[in-house]
């Protein structure tokens, strides 16, 4: 009798700023019944990927404020591939310019939620995308 739960690592890489946005999404996902592994500030892409693997996460949510999103997403997605873990979904939020979103999706990000996106959008996406992944 299986009782599977969606597990999501929420990471806020980089040296800049605060993790308010990351905490808001963490709480919203928890309230939707998910298990959130919260890693706090200043994680390197290597640490984020190791955490996702040890935690057997279904998805990694990356919150970026610094404008260095291209770098972080690429590095996390590449490392997941390298470690044979590209079935772990990557999504993101924070301050990401509209114009950059297609590039991130091409890179392999599953979804990018720009500023002002209601948390329910992320919840709905995870509830669909997690069971559907291979």
């Amino acid at each position: 009798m299986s009782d599977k739960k969606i597990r999501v690592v929420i990471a806020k890489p980089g040296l800049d700023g605060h993790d308010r946005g990351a905490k808001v999404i963490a709480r919203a996902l928890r309230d939707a019944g998910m298990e959130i592994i919260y890693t706090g500030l200043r994680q390197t892409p290597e640490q984020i990927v190791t955490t996702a693997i040890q935690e057997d996460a279904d998805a990694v949510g990356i919150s970026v404020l610094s404008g260095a999103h291209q770098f972080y997403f690429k590095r996390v997605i590449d490392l997941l591939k390298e470690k044979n873990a590209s079935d772990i979904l990557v999504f993101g939020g924070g301050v990401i310019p509209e114009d950059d979103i297609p590039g991130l999706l091409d890179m392999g990000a599953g979804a990018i939620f720009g500023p002002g996106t209601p948390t329910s959008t992320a919840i709905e996406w995870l509830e669909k995308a997690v069971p559907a992944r291979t």
Partner: protein
Amino acid sequence: MSTLAERATGGDVRAMARLISMAEDRADGVDALMRELYPHTGRAWTIGVTGSPGAGKSTLTDKLIEHFRSEGSTVGVLAVDPSSPYTGGAILADRLRMQRHTDDAGVFMRSLGARGSLGGLSRGTREGVLILDACGYDVVIIETVGVGQSEIDVMRVADTVCVVLVPGLGDDIQAMKAGIMEIGDLFVVNKADRSGADRVVNEVRGVLEFLKGREWVPTVLQTVAENGEGVPELVRLLRLHREHSLKSEAGRERELARLRSKIEDIMLERLSDRVEKLWTVRREELLEAVRERKLDPYAVAEELLSKA
């Protein structure tokens, strides 16, 4: 051996992590995997770190990891946080304080939600210990919040239990008299940089007086987890307990009690699955009949069980 168990015992972190999830989720086939792993268990030293919320358990665990790693031991950590009783969701944040070990391949850390285990240790925790043991970790540390059943349960998985107290929680000692005293092999008064630590130590000593004459009498010590003060002494005392239980009758009895509850847990889980199944087909109909007083709950239970 199946490839997943083989990969995990061969050091594949993804496979280990997956096995723990399967145990947590009670996925199909996980019992067979556990059977494959079991012969590889029995080597690890399991340490339970329990205590009230915010007592400094994770910070202390971080320092214990550092200490064991400096001695060359590999370390697995299972850090349990409460789940919401309403949604089943959880924010697992213990890792935050141990993050610096993430890049160390000799450390495996896993966060677990308590899930619906009624305050007791979740299935993921109980099986996670065996999985990490089978995968060769020398030391397995379990961090649990000491509420209700979980602190009693931690005795059933840990070889050595360390109860973490802090100054300024007067009720702690009262609660201890009511039972925590029986759980700890060692008592730590953390945040000893704050005033009142000596008083807590004295109070604990007072309660421990009652245990005089036992084979193992727990000791109390002070730590400042934040800067590592007292940690070497803590490790020395933990190890003393470990050595004691490896050669004493009490240690053997504890192991037998643990195996007994393990086997009973497995049986209860299977029985409870069976109860669930017995009743799924006709549940609505039977409930309605009882509601209308055409049947009574006793007769229904009797009838369902007679078909089991």
